[in-house]
């Protein structure tokens, strides 16, 4: 275990090297490369398509809800998989464990369903 002094020096060296590598690559590129300015080069690259509008539009909030619903199933898959691998060892307890977990998540999903968050066209209440 290094003592305090060499640790601080080590950290400093690490930081200096980290900055130097990033800056060095940029500066080297600037010195070596040829300069051929063209307006096309400054344009935003969007898969080769001409861009439309600004890059700060307000996305439809419904996309976020879809993302959240996706998350529910995503987490389910992520935990079902290792569970299935060790299922034989776990026995009945593992079944109840997963059923409990699954039902909690399903309640969340039912809640979304009940209040129409799954409908793409949805009436929004006025304040």
């Amino acid at each position, binding site marked *: 275990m290094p*003592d*305090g002094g060499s640790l601080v020096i080590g950290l400093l060296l690490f930081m200096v090297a980290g900055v130097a590598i990033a800056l060095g690559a940029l500066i080297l590129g600037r010195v070596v490369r040829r300069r051929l300015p063209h307006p096309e080069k400054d344009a935003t690259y969007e898969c080769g398509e001409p861009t439309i509008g600004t890059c700060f539009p307000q996305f439809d909030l419904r996309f976020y809800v879809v993302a959240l619903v996706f998350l529910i199933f995503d987490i389910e898959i992520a935990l079902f998989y290792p569970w299935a691998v*060790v299922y034989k060892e*776990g026995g009945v307890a593992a079944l109840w464990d997963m059923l409990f977990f699954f039902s909690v998540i399903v309640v969340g999903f*039912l809640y979304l369903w*009940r209040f129409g968050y799954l409908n793409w066209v949805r009436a929004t209440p006025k*304040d």
Partner: protein
Amino acid sequence: MWMPTGDELSMLGPHWALVGTIVAILIGAIIAGRNWRVAGTIAMVGGLLTAGLCALGWKGLGTNWAGMAGGAGGVPMLVADQFSYFFIFLISIFLVLIAGMWFLGQDARLPEKLARKRDATEFYVLLVGSAFGMALMVSTTNLLMIIIAVEMTSLPSYALAGFRKKHRLATEASLKYILFGAVTSAIMIYGASLLYGQYHSLDIVVIGRAIVEQLTIGTTEAGGAILNAPTVLMSVSIVAFMIGAMFKVSAVPFHFWCPDVFEGASIEITTWLSVASKAAGLGLLLRVVAVLAAQLGDGAEQTLNWVRLAVAVMAALTCTLGNFSAYRQTNMKRLFAFSSIAHAGYMLMAVAIILPTGGAASGAAHPAFSAIVLYITVYLLMNLGVFGCIAMVYWATGREDIGAFNGLIRRSPVIAVMMVAFLFSLVGMPPLGGFIAKFWLLAALFDSGPIGILLVIVAVANTLFSLYYYARVAFAMCFSDDGQPAIRVPFLGQAAATVCALAILLIGTLWAGNIKTFSDERSSNLYAVTKQAEQPVEEAVKTAELDFRE
């Protein structure tokens, strides 16, 4: 594969009750639709159930570990003892009171009245969710679990802070809270990763033992270990790790979110964050420092000196800055945000002195533990009272600046009198509970050596400073009547404020002895976690790693 035993499951009863409450609120909403009464009632019943389970369970409860990865002696996930049960009790009782406050506020003519009614389900789910995070926070010594618990507390709190949708201040509060919380969690997780990298364990008990092994260079004649000077990396990683809890407690310099969030959030959330978030953060800090100190034993003073100094300086700065910033505030929520920062400072002072001075070996509790338990209990009542009174004035007048309190003694005598009681209890005047709380805190500080005595001086000076701005509110209520009309306050609200004030008065007088015994008992076995330390470090690490591989 590890499976929980029945004992483990039953000792986590309060945690189960809180999870069950969240699910029950959702099921209630699915069945009954968006009904704010149903959601609120379920939340209140769930909170009461949790508190009841804690109160029934804590009698004679020892230190119980749950979720041992790798069998006995492995890395436990959760711990159920009197200390964690007490904090969960406190948090769930507070949850019930906040739910009640939301009920009362429902009758007020607020601009957001309709939205409040409609979104009540989400409000209660988020509220209970953050309460559950806090319950996890106070009952774990596992780095991963601590990180999950802090996030579990924070994420619903961010949403709750911005719960008044389309309200500019609330949105600002929520954004500031998220940004600040994200940065402090990043620092905390970085500290945790450094700790794990050095000591190859997620459990603070094992980390404590690994630190002792790393630093031991010999033994004294009596058999105690002689420790080398601590490494810088160790101190830095422990302090970085503690920053997550410091953020929850709103210690300077991590307090910037506090006034803005308190001002922007609706008043129920302000009250909730002002007590529950601080209680959970303190519970976590206390446990982490106590466990480390108990593992280090005789070497704790020397090894953790740097950490202790950092906490002491933060505590002194927190209460001084909190009190001075409160001077010029005219918004009541902001004023009491700074007041709550100052009180967090007083409580942090006790964290700075809990390194054992021979106490860990004999199994006796450090007086600072019970001082904090007592302080947080009284603080809950005082703050609930103060914010309740502010809420009732806000509901009646729509204003929350100090001018709305002018002449309150004529406009609503009950509220004004109770408010004065809460204010003087916050200052720490006898015969109110705040005095007893501060007395035991200062006594614990005074007995703990030079750092403690310096902190006593800071605390006493701060008490004097704080008198001014608390008295300013009392002055406005009693002596600067500008002829505003009388206000109507809900009867239940008046009754609740009266009960709070009476409880504070009783704690300050008749119950002073009982509450001291109570807090001694609740905090008695914090050091006892040492007993888990039978297994040598390598084995504990190995079993944990094996378990991961399985």
